[in-house]
């Protein structure tokens, strides 16, 4: 194989999504990485640990006694000025929840991979997005990847998005357990110098710090009936919401800059695939999108005017981008890899219903739930999705939800 430097081509390696994430961490140069192992994230922290042991990453590695402390030590480090990273999923994420929930309120730009895993219970160690979907109302930014390359690229971009002064919020880069965590492909590695230039100097605690040179009280009791209590609390909430809305712009700009610098183009918020002349579309999120696109190609060959809409940024919810996309079709079918128990449908479906309400004309939609606990969503499954979605145009409605793997 020719030397990348000699051929002037970007350096490439063959790896899975967890190793790609570790490479992204290496390139982003965090000061501190705190880890606790959990399937299917474990190999990611093993790669990061090995990179640190090998000197590829000049970061403090904190092997702490649980995910709760993982997020907590990152809080302390970030408040002292560090750039920080971790990864988790499933029960580990649930255990982390208390400090996790606190992170965005303190506006700490911590970056964390969620190697998505189905939820408890029944016990399951396999892929699914139930864990990540549980985070919807925590105030973190949440971006779902389709490919191993996108895992690497998004993770680097995440630091820039998180530390942007108009945002100052933690970011979850979600990549599907099993499919992306262990799926091996060729991946291009960005040049370190270019990443350094892209990310700039870390900027994590200008607004809130635990620093004797800038003494302040961090997160005192706020609200209640004391003087200025309610208004102070409301300002925190408003600021948080504004940061989330700013993030829509910053995520878009960051992706544009990424394309200019590294030549790889991703839809930052909502990806449209073969949608321009489509009558109807399926909506996907995460790694299933690849199989979904293949299925769309097959259906297109059979004359179906179907396209695909991929939700990449789920938090903040890209309402405007989604609305603009949805106006192009007359029926949709949304495929979720998790469940909204309260609404008896998939959570992405549930939220897209809110977007549909803003359209001038009502269009029909079906909720499909598949890929739970590591089960596959194959081309055949997508063929069923496409067929049922298209049938709505002729008035043949399907009752939601449709459980794609219920007979397997």
């Amino acid at each position: 194989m020719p030397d990348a430097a000699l051929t002037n081509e970007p350096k490439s390696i063959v790896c899975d999504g967890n190793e790609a994430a570790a490479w992204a961490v290496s390139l982003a140069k965090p000061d501190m990485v705190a880890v606790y192992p959990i399937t299917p994230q474990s190999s990611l922290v093993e790669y990061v640990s090995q990179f640190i042991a090998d000197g590829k990453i000049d970061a403090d590695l904190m092997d702490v006694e649980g995910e709760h402390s993982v997020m907590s030590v990152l809080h302390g480090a970030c408040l002292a000025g560090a750039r920080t990273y971790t990864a988790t999923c499933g029960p580990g994420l649930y255990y982390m929840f208390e400090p996790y929930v606190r992170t965005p309120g303190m506006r700490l730009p911590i970056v964390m991979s969620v190697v998505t895993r189905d939820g408890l219970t029944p016990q399951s160690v396999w892929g699914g997005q139930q864990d990540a979907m549980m985070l919807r109302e925590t105030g973190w930014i949440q971006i779902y990847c389709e490919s191993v390359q996108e895992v690497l690229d998004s993770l680097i971009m995440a630091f820039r998005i998180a530390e942007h002064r108009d945002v100052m919020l933690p970011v979850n880069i979600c990549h599907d357990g099993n499919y992306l965590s262990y799926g091996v492909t060729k991946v291009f590695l960005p040049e370190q110098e270019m990443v350094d230039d892209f990310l700039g100097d870390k900027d994590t605690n200008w607004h809130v710090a635990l620093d004797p040179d800038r003494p302040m009280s961090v997160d005192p009791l706020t609200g209640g009936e004391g003087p200025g209590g309610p208004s102070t609390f409301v300002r925190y909430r408003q600021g948080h919401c504004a940061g989330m809305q700013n993030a829509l712009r910053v995520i878009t700009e960051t992706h544009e800059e990424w394309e200019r610098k590294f030549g790889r183009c991703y839809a930052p918020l909502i990806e449209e695939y073969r949608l321009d002349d489509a009558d109807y579309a399926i909506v996907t999120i995460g790694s299933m999108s690849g199989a979904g696109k293949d299925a769309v190609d097959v259906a297109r060959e059979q004359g179906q005017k179907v396209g695909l809409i991929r939700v990449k940024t789920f938090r903040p919810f890209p309402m405007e981008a989604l609305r603009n996309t949805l106006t192009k079709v007359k029926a949709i079918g949304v495929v979720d890899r998790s469940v909204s128990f309260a609404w008896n449908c998939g959570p992405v479906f549930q939220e897209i219903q809110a977007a549909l309400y803003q359209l001038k004309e009502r269009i029909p939609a079906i909720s499909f739930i598949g890929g739970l606990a590591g089960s596959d969503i194959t081309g055949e499954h997508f063929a069923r999705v496409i067929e049922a979605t298209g049938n709505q145009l002729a008035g043949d409605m399907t009752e939601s939800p449709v459980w794609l793997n219920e007979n397997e």
Partner: protein
Amino acid sequence: MGHSHNTIAFHQDKCDGCGECMTVCAGAKSGTADTLHSRLKIVPSIAANDSFELALCRQCGDPKCVLNCPSGSLTKNHKTGVVPWDAEKCVDCLLCTVGCAYGGITYNAAAGHVMKCDMCDGDPACVKSCPTGALEYNRSAEIYNNYGELEDLFVPGLAACQGCNSELLIRHTMRKIGSNAVVATPPGCIAGMGTVGFNGKTGSKIPVFHPLLTNTASMLAGAKRYYNRIGRDVTMVALAGDGGTVDAGFQSLSGAAERGEQMLYICVDNEGYMNTGMQRSGSTSFGSWTSTTPVGETLHGKTQDAKNMPVIMMMHNCEYVATASLAFMDDYYEKLDKALAAAKRGMAYLHVYSPCPTGWRIPSESTNEVCRKAVETNFVTLWEFAPDEGLRFTHSTDDPLPVEEYLNLSGKYRHLDDAQLTHIENSVERKVAFLNGFMLATSDDGAESLAQ
């Protein structure tokens, strides 16, 4: 700022009138065994039979002898506190003896001039000679003298309950630690009384924060690691309650100690969730009334013993572990010094027993008495532990007062029956025996005792 000075104290109940102090004083000051030349006098009490009184210079702050002296031979040394007598300037007028109401300066006809105590330059011979301990050299106000001028880094005024001695702890601890520090106060009384502040107003002059109840040690560890990484020496301090330490915060503390994270973790143990409404914690003592171990027809307070947190911390790779009580401030200060030094190497853990006037049902003025009685009855033991030095008691556990004398001070024990009292007595004895065994096995003092 003024200074307070050391004194010679007299315990009348211990004096048997042997006069050894006078013999030694005469020898030390005049080179004779003749007690005529002693500068203190033990004399039979006029007020009570078989007891004695001490005539000795009080080294008054506003000495009448100095005021009366026309020649300047008597002065007050405000640095040492001693009133020295200068023979060169004395005109033997004896006006000084008229001024003194204590018999502290008297005319010695044999010597031909007045005599008075000069405290032997801070090492009084009489005190060392006293066989009964009736004379005691009191090292007083050292904390005030040494630390009084350090900046108070805590808010003036606070929202603590009347009689709570946590304020004492916070102010003293912060003064000692100084401003190059980060202080964590998880939810609890210490945070609740205003340390972190409210609605954007801070309660401290140094960086201070609310961790969660559960992650104090982890947050401090993260900040410390980063400061170490960038080469800044910043002290990390936790001021946590027992709930945030022995219960919900235990895992993060255990992990941080195991990893040798560099911090000073102070647990202020008031035996329950007192800020939240006086509920039971893992540190609540057996038999205690709390709002979740109430006293009724079938239940009579807590049915389990407290978790012995400082002993658990001894087994946790700590650089230093000690218990303390604010009735023994000198002891606390010495331990604070050692703990701060140890926190540069790893985990230092201080467990401070801290009565809660509100939750324990004790009069607000008796907090310190409760603190002291806890130690004097061995309900609380004062000790320190370092891996290389083993365990050492800093207050003797010999001859304790009956534990009832401690229990009777708090309303939370008012309902105790005989069986509960026996349980407490036994558990106090067991805890002391365990610590003694550990002391014998780990320290040089203990090794010597074993050899004898």
